[in-house]
């Protein structure tokens, strides 16, 4: 039997980060709201029937102010606003996370390759990125959505393309800072391949700023998609999308203000929680920045 007492040894880096994050109250509030949003979005079909309650018009019940049956009231076509807002979270979160995942993989790969190899590879990649960085992201998304038609797939593509340069830049600069450290030199000395070094050493060490950027980028994407839908260039009726719902409410601003109010509150809550979480992660991953 092993009777040795546990020595107080240092826990792993992930544990350290989690501990620091758990101590940050506002980050925990942010995390709680994000988790709540995800749970609500995932379980929504258990409470609402998409075809019967979210999409189907019920003119007899239109423009009801918030009441016991429809907690947040109904819209101009008699649909329950709460249900539509809940279903809206599915769209926003789906678009937000898919877009960022795509941008992360493409941008991250390009940035890591440029940063690792340097020289002409780096030059070509980054000059190409400069072109995309020069166009304000929302405008670029508007152009693509307008040209190719605004369905969810095209919107994700448009937003992802405009998010790629951000990821490429961040990963590149992180990779450049870790490239010259001694343990990379050591693994090269024992004959590790480029791919192995990038995947096993360079990327894990460059990940901290990327995680923060990812969290904040999801927020930006959700805000942009709402803006595009508000302009009529994003996700269109009858799909419940927050920006589009907010825009629908414009006709009834004077009499039924809640129609624009509640989708806005949903957007703010989402963006706020992601920002709280992102800021907390930044402090937890790099205490020096605080």
């Amino acid at each position, binding site marked *: 039997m092993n009777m040795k007492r546990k020595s107080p040894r240092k826990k792993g880096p992930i544990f350290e980060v989690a501990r620091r994050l758990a101590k940050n109250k506002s980050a925990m509030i942010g995390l709680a709201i994000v988790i709540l949003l995800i749970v609500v979005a995932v379980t929504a079909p258990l409470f609402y029937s998409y075809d019967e309650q979210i999409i189907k018009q019920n003119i007899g019940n239109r423009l009801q102010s918030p009441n016991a049956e429809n907690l947040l009231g109904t819209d101009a076509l008699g649909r329950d606003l709460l249900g539509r807002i809940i279903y809206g979270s599915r769209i926003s979160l789906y678009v937000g996370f898919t877009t960022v995942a795509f941008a992360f993989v493409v941008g991250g790969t390009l940035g890591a390759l440029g940063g690792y190899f340097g020289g002409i590879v780096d030059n070509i990649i980054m*000059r*190409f990125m*400069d*072109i*995309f960085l*020069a*166009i*304000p*992201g*929302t*405008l670029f998304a*508007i*152009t*693509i959505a*307008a*040209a*190719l*038609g605004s369905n969810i797939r095209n919107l994700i593509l448009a937003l992802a393309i405009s998010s790629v340069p951000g990821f490429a830049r961040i990963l590149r600069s992180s990779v450049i800072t870790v490239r010259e450290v001694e343990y990379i030199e050591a693994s090269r000395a024992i004959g590790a391949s480029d791919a192995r070094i990038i995947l096993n050493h360079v990327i894990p060490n460059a990940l901290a700023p990327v995680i923060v950027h990812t969290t904040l980028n999801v*927020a930006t994407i959700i*805000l942009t998609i*709402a*803006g595009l839908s*508000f*302009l*009529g*260039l994003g996700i269109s009726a009858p799909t419940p999308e927050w*920006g589009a719902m*907010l*825009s629908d409410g*414009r006709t009834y*601003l*004077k009499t039924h*203000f809640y129609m*624009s109010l509640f989708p*806005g509150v949903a*957007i*703010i809550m989402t*963006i*706020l929680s992601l*920002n*709280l979480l992102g800021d907390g992660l930044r402090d937890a991953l790099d205490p020096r920045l605080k």
Partner: protein
Amino acid sequence: MWKYIAKRLLYMIPVLLGVTLIVYIIMSVAPGDPAKAILGDQATPDAIEQLREELGLDDPLLVQYGRYVKGLVRGDLGISYKSKGPVIDEIIARVPTTLYLSLSATIIAVVIAIPLGILAAVKQNTFIDGLSMFIALIGISIPIFWLGLLLLVYFAQELRWFPASGASSWKHFVLPGIALGFHSMASIARITRSSMLEVIRQDYIRTARSKGMPYKQVITKHALPNALIPTITVTGLQIGALLAGSVLTESVFSLPGIGRLIINSIQGRDIPVVLGCILVFTLTFSIINLLVDILYAFVDPRIRAQYF
């Protein structure tokens, strides 16, 4: 210094060419025939074919693009499909509105953000700090169009303090300026706070305090000028966000600016106008970035000594 500026200006050319090429390709692969869009549904196939020839739409894409760039060099952005007038004239007619909007947004953002950031830093970890940063966080999270609608309903329709639409006096730009500027305010306030916090801890601040200088004076005379350098950068970068945000703001407040022109032209498939607007926005964005870098060197002798 001049060499650096010239280099940066020259570098802008390939970037802008790249931008136009990408946008040109995207707009060209879009379904729909511009000739049909101009002539309407009633047009005969002959008339459409004739117009296609006039516009050079049957040429290969690269030939069309080459023609576009050739015009660009002479300051010719092409002819609007819809109004049949030069695109450049349409854009110029709308520049003042977007300019006033961005200007009022920037002024509102800076006037609120800098005191907020300084206050938060000086009173670090107090209630005031928490409140300031919470306001900044709200600013980052609130959608421009939603804040715009709130302002519109309350201050224009209920209280009637400001007009709800149009762009004929300074009063028309107050509410849109707040809606658009609030978002930038948040980023500027946060960076002011963090750079102020960094500066306050420096030795020369301690020296200034220990020689008996009043705290207020230490902050305004010694700390602030140094802390404002990152603020300038962020303010400059925010102008890019303002340009994109102007599309939304102009839509909410029915302002006849470039942002509205883009949306209307996209809906009307008026490709030359869309291209022209995006080019103008991109050019403005690039020039502002350059100006920020130059200004940076101007206010910070350390950087000036290093690069110029």
